[in-house]
């Protein structure tokens, strides 16, 4: 079982992004669930979401406390919340950033770091800085836990082709550092 935690802010589509990953997993015959942390998601406020992925049905309906992967949709969050709490050994970290992964600070247990300039791609493609779709592309590229086509299809179905193309472009432009 893989456990993932997403950190975003109200308005960024964090919860929806988590759901897309589960969709993709299910589309490819697996199982998954996603649970948002239950706050009041107003614009700007920190938002957390949890995902579990597995080949067999997933029973616990609880939050994720020891993630194998952390997705950070807004780098400024790192000052507001401790995004690394509980992170497992050999974890993945995906950050929305124009800078290369080398510039990202992370604990040792994080062994793969990826960055993508999600805002830039999003503004360019749909005119608004909504980073969630780009982060999906980066997630797939970095972890390979779900198939890119499944993600693209779901995004296209939910939000149309422009968004789907963001996923692909992000997938292609994600920078990955394994350490």
């Amino acid at each position, binding site marked *: 079982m893989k456990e993932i935690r997403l950190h975003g802010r109200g308005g960024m589509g964090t919860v929806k992004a988590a759901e897309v990953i589960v969709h993709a997993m299910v589309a490819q015959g697996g199982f998954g669930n996603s649970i948002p942390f239950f706050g*009041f998601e*107003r*614009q*700007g*406020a920190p938002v957390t979401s949890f995902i579990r992925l597995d080949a067999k049905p997933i029973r616990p309906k609880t939050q994720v406390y020891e993630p194998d992967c952390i997705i950070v949709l807004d780098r400024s969050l790192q000052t507001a919340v401790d995004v690394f709490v509980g992170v497992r050994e050999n974890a993945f970290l995906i950050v929305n950033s124009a800078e290369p992964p080398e510039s990202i600070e992370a604990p040792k247990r994080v062994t793969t770091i990826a960055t993508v300039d999600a805002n830039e791609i999003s503004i360019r493609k749909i005119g608004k800085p909504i980073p969630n779709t780009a982060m999906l592309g980066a997630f797939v590229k970095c972890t390979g836990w779900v198939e890119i086509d499944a993600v693209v299809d779901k995004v296209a179905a939910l939000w149309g082709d422009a968004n789907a193309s963001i996923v692909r472009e992000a997938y292609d432009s994600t920078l990955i550092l394994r350490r």
Partner: protein
Amino acid sequence: MTALDTLATREDQISPGISACVGCNVELTLRTVLKVLGPNTILAIPPGCMGGVGVVGWDKMSGAKVPVFFPLLDNSASMLAGIRLGLKARGREANVVAFAGDGATVDAGFQALSGAAERGDKIIYICYDNEGYMNTGYQRSSSTSKGSWTSTTPVSKEGSGGKPQHRKDFPLIMAMHDLPYVATASPAYIPDLVKKVERAMEVKEGLAYIHIYNPCLTGWGIKSDDSIAISRLSVQSRFFPLWEAHGRRLQFTVRVPKPVPVADYVRRIGKFRHLDEARIAELQAITDERYSFLEAMDRMGGGANAPGA
């Protein structure tokens, strides 16, 4: 003291940082009202956006400097009536005030409010009307305008749908409760609002009611910069006229001799985007109808209600 002086010199009674949406004119309204009311106030914030964004506080902390509490969605007026009685029993005096959404007022809390109005409980009841249940994600309320998209009155791809009924003319319904003071107000007319809150505070006996029309940026699809401009249009189009009434003596406080077309207002709002001309004409018609009723009341002026008239 001018409204500006009041607002520039009085202390803000609300936490400086509450999580209302960027540009929220309900936040503006709340801060304004509370400055006028001052610290000797007990404030009810029923479930709704203002409670949701933290005005009553989180965990062991408060979101306001005055005593503040959550009533239930449906009992703001009756809880306040009880607070007034408790204060009376203790020989104390304070402003006893609700700041409640239209859901808590026009729908779920109406009976409690109507009862308090009839009994003459001395409370100041302020309704911020954003035409729906915003805290739960914008469902329709009795105050939602006809045609409006909401999450429970969805619009089809062809643009049909939206709320089928006109909005309850709630301030007028409250005025027909023969209250000492009833007024409508708008965040685009802050000095007018300030004066009305002061009037409400002057009431010696009975319930004072102020109905404030607050376009919700997030729910309605309005850019934050446009918040006040669009609020102003609601008044300038006569869609939401500003008046006050003592008993049934009603008078406009902002006269709109040359209204802009309702279309000019409606067209700037996302939730009305699907309305065609015919449906906007309906809104124009109800606007005209209700306005001319108010004009007639305004003309009656003091006369109709003077004893022995």
